[in-house]
């Protein structure tokens, strides 16, 4: 089985670990914890699919993977700029939150396989279908990229439905944009785990209460026409998948974006390995059917 021939590896030209400093064009405070950073492409032609990620970091603070929050295709920014939504949870992200317009952020990427909405990868098959987006918490960030991309080419897709949930009304992301999305022809159902009265500007929450997966059984779904996309915290997937199975949606029509620890982004460091696949290379977007026999995938 092992025989290597006489191949002496040749050294390439550039380091995989050299970041590009990008200018921050705008910082928008979304919630207490989340900020949206618009990064200038500085003349570089970044092309990406929704669902792909950048390794973003700062000197002295390390780097971490962040999903792209921007749309691509017809929804891409003309100047190549893009947005990352960053939640302050640790040393790096707290430091990033201290940055202002005009500061620089180090990025490498884009990495991984995203949702290939228009293209020819094995993930094609979204065009012409009904799409059910299921997002939990910060999972709305990569979902936003996907939704914007799809809304940019609205007539190519069937019915669009977004089900999305947050812990409490305080944490709701992109509430304003949601109205635009609805106006562009997407149904949206918002839910919160708990209304947390008194804390919220949305005092006296009137909307749906309960985790995202509790909303799914009530939806009208045509299983043969529907593609479902799930992005959320690790605990959400099993329940969401179960409720989609109850609706008879096939494994091939369920798409997931999996969060993993990542240190390199280029398929070397081993942290994001799930069974035989690297989430940073073959993922983070997968079809459920691709994750069969992988004990720690979900």
């Amino acid at each position: 089985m092992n025989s290597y021939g006489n191949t002496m590896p040749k050294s390439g030209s550039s380091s995989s670990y050299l970041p590009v400093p990008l200018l921050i064009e705008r910082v928008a405070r979304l919630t207490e914890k989340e900020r949206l950073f618009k990064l200038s492409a500085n003349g570089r032609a970044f092309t990406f699919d929704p669902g792909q990620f950048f390794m973003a970091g700062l000197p002295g603070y390390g780097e971490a993977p962040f999903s792209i929050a921007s749309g691509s295709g017809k929804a891409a920014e003309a100047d190549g700029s893009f947005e990352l939504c960053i939640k302050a949870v640790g040393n790096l992200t707290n430091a990033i939150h201290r940055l202002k317009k005009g500061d620089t952020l180090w990025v490498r990427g884009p990495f991984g396989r995203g949702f290939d909405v228009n293209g020819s990868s094995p993930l094609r098959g979204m065009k012409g279908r009904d799409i059910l987006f299921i997002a939990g918490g910060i999972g709305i960030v990569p979902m936003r990229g996907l939704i914007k991309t799809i809304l940019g080419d609205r007539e190519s897709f069937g019915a669009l439905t977004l089900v999305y949930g947050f812990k409490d009304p305080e944490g709701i992301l992109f509430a304003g944009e949601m109205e635009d999305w609805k106006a562009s022809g997407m149904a949206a159902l918002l839910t919160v785990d708990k209304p947390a009265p008194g804390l919220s500007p949305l005092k006296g929450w009137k909307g749906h209460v309960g985790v995202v997966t509790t909303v799914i059984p009530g939806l009208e779904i045509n299983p043969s026409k529907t593609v479902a996309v799930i992005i959320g915290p690790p605990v959400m997937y099993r329940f969401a998948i179960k409720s989609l199975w109850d609706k008879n949606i096939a494994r091939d029509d369920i798409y997931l974006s999996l969060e993993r620890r990542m240190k390199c982004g280029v398929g070397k460091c081993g942290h994001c390995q799930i069974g035989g696949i690297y989430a940073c290379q073959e993922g983070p977007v997968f079809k459920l059917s691709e994750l069969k026999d992988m004990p720690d995938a979900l």
Partner: protein
Amino acid sequence: MPENAEKIRPKAAFFSFTCCEGCQLAVLSCEDELPDILRALNIVYFREAMTEKRVEPSQREDYDIAFVEGSVTTQKEITKLKHIRKKAKTVIALGACSSTGGLNCLKNRFPMDFVKKTVYGKYAEKYKKTFETLPVRPIDSIIKVDCYLHGCPISKTEFLSAFTALLMGKTPITQNYPVCVDCKMAGNICVFEKGMTCLGPVTRAGCDAVCVTYGCICWGCRGLVDDPNVSAHKETLKRYGLTAESMLRSFDLYGNCSLRKSGSLGVRPAKK
């Protein structure tokens, strides 16, 4: 240095409770880096390093960073410690005594009266108030601790990385893997292979396995990792010929308090 540097330099203080003060000495032995440290920190209290008399914590207004060395053994110390917590934004436990109780915990094996009598003889009874003593506790049993620098003494490298982290607004990282990792990296032959035993497989790393590298064994001074496999280690020690008693002793040397902390003896650190 900008003119207002004095204002922006964070105020730091080093306090010492029951211990040998060796961890403060370890800080002072960072000779190459001391100028950088002094440039970055406004050290307002450091008894072991300062000749001038500085204000005691009870009078001081506040501290940005309080490094606290030593374990707690008297009521007076408890009061002082609570004072420090009130006035400090960040409290760092400096070394084994403050973070796990350290060697001092050996005292806890005996009744306090017996301990007092052994040390002070007939004076124990005569000066009851003066020689008041409590079972040894790590400081987090009294106050909330923001970050731990483990070890007896602390590792200079870890202290310096905590220093840079704090100055850059980061929470210093505490390793959560056993000493075996450091020991393998150091290229050491396992002490078990050399006919000895050690506590490395359940002890928190970060020390570069200096003890084993220089011919000793790991006594577990950095306390247990978050999820130690203590039962497996007892089996291993048994297999290598240790009796139950000698096993407990080796765990007790530094581990007494940290075993308690891990829940097996029922004492938990204070929430806040």
